[in-house]
């Protein structure tokens, strides 16, 4: 087990410190809010103890920010929130090892889907950990732990807001079925917690991300699209090819290894054929229900939204492995074990290379690579003689969080609240400007060069795509700095008008 955990930890730690290779806006927002909660007791808007992080209208689940506070205080916003995910990801591997044996643990340790995402500050990693805790608690009849894990998971991620209430019912059913019970005090506590949670969860701000789902479709078209999306989470083709977004996959490897898919389906068929599925209702419920919220969003296979599925998939791998190794006895069984372990070792080696070499190059732009250099260069500018510093928001509209983190914005400087209140759902909107740690004020707006070139003594920073070399020359603008990717292509730049 120690070797499996070390392997899991090693693979998940790769790249967590390489901030220059890219930080995504969501992990920056979670990290900055954790720092703000630590230093001021309130989030970036000054809201004390937020029930959801407004985050410019995204209404992120708050649990990850709260639990990241200790590591953020030691390692900073980005690395702290990433290390939190690494820790929870590795602990998830340990739980799966305990639940379904060494092959399931090893499978989770080297699962590219989970390895990639648990190296980053992503809410779904916390939810996946809590689902693993829930499953192990239900299996061991630790009903109180199971209920607490499900309640916490409601605050962990958008998908679990809808999934966990269903799992609460599963827990209750399983507890009654197994002859378990909660004490009177705990039952009252659970009912109060359930009522309060329900009261918060039905509020529009908690469903802001889901309100637009399927609005412009007929019932038949909606049913077809949702069922197609749902089916894709069980389809070997989608499980192997993964997500359409580069940052959600590891370059050049399967999202779920081919032998894991085979073993998982062998495990499932084994459960169904032997009738043992009756003992695995919680596992099968999680497996069947986990992709529902992701499927309702209709988008193609989404690795983050369905990350919870990795838990039941890997447990099925463990069950399938037991089924297969039970069949051939003696030498044949040993040969089979050696073969699978050899394949897993080689795949680990491939995964390591892809994570350290290919992935940083392949998904450089999607992880907004090089932006830390852009912010550094901007902060080094001598403000004298410059009227304004304008940051382009055309390509990355949610870029404010990166400026808050990389620009070392003081957490005491809160963002003014627009609209009717913190929890009042309004149109997605970022701040118009931020004062960076060195006192420089940056203004956020989409840059339109034919108009913007007319402003004198103004610095524009943003994507190379906004600044055509000929247009810059004609306007007499000066290129102040450029940030290049691994291949030497300019991706970000700063220019100053006459």
């Amino acid at each position, binding site marked *: 087990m120690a070797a499996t955990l070390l392997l899991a930890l090693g693979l998940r730690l790769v790249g967590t410190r390489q901030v220059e290779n890219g930080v995504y806006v969501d992990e920056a927002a979670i990290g900055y809010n954790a720092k703000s909660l630590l230093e001021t007791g309130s989030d970036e808007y000054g809201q004390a103890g937020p029930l959801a992080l407004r985050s410019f209208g995204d209404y992120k689940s708050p649990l990850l920010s709260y639990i990241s506070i200790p590591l953020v205080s030691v390692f900073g916003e980005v690395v702290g929130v990433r290390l939190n995910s690494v820790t929870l990801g590795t602990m998830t591997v340990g739980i799966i090892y305990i639940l379904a044996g060494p092959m399931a643990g090893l499978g989770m340790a080297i699962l590219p889907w989970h390895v990639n995402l648990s190296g980053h500050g992503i809410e779904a990693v916390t939810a996946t950990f809590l689902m693993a805790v829930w499953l192990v608690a239900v299996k061991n009849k630790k009903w109180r732990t199971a209920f607490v894990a499900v309640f916490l998971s409601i605050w962990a991620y958008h998908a679990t807001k809808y999934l966990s209430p269903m799992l609460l019912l599963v827990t209750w059913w399983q507890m009654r079925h197994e002859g378990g019970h909660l004490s009177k005090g705990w039952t009252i506590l659970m009912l109060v917690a359930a009522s309060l949670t329900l009261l918060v969860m039905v509020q529009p701000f908690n469903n802001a991300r889901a309100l637009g789902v399927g609005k412009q479709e007929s019932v038949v078209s909606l049913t077809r699209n949702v069922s197609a999306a749902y*089916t894709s989470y069980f*389809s070997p083709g989608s499980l192997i090819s993964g997500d359409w977004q580069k940052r959600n996959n590891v370059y050049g490897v399967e999202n779920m290894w081919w032998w894991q898919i085979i073993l998982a389906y062998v495990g499932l068929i084994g459960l169904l054929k032997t009738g043992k599925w009756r003992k695995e209702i919680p596992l099968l419920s999680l497996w069947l229900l986990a992709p529902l919220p992701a499927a309702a969003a209709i988008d193609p296979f989404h690795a983050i939204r369905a990350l919870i599925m990795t838990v039941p998939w890997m447990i099925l791998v463990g069950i399938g492995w037991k089924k297969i190794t039970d069949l051939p006895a003696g030498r044949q069984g040993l040969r089979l074990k050696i073969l699978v372990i050899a394949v897993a070792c080689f795949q680990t080696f491939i995964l390591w290379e892809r994570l350290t070499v290919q992935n940083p190059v392949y998904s450089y732009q999607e992880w907004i690579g090089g932006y830390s250099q852009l912010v550094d260069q901007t902060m080094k500018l001598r403000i004298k003689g410059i009227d304004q510093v304008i940051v382009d928001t055309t390509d990355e509209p949610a870029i404010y969080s990166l400026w808050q983190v990389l620009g070392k914005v003081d957490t005491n400087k809160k963002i003014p609240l627009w609209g009717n209140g913190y929890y009042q759902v309004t149109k997605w909107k970022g701040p118009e400007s931020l004062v960076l740690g060195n006192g420089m004020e940056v203004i956020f707006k989409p840059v339109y060069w034919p108009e913007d070139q007319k402003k004198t003594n103004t610095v524009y920073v943003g994507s190379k795509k906004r600044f055509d070399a000929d247009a810059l020359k004609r306007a007499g603008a000066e290129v102040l700095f450029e940030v290049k990717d691994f291949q030497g292509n300019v991706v970000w730049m700063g220019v100053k008008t006459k």
Partner: protein
Amino acid sequence: MDYTRVMAKLWLGVAGSMWLLAFGFQMIVASRQAETVGEVHWMVDNQRIYNRKGFAGWTGRAVANKWVVGFETSVQKATETVDPNILFYIGHPNERGGVIEQRYLPWWLIPFWLVGALFAGKRESGLVLLASAWAMVAGTAGVAMYPMAAVYGWLIVRGIGYIWQKK
């Protein structure tokens, strides 16, 4: 062991061997494609130029070569032969680039297919396995998806049959 079981096992063995041959052939074809060669060059360049430490020598070649890339492409193709999204939803929502997807089975029959797979899989598992194995051989060898569509269609009919009998 009765004669039928022996014959079923024999045909399954033959199908398995044929599938391995078809997969091997796919791998050879994939490894020689221009896209594969280009991808390998790109990966080796990344190892040598952008990340000089660790993977520049034989270790790098062991994980970035035409066989590894060809294998990944072939695994992808092999899994497509059983993909319910391709068979029921014209590839939606993961439409494949450069492929004109076609309709094999109507999507609303998927519940009957599931019932059929559950019941037929339990009572006639040998037959399902054998038919699927041969359909996979055909799919992996590139003979379109019709054989697998026929197996899925058969499961749909069985599913409807079981539901009817239950009534």
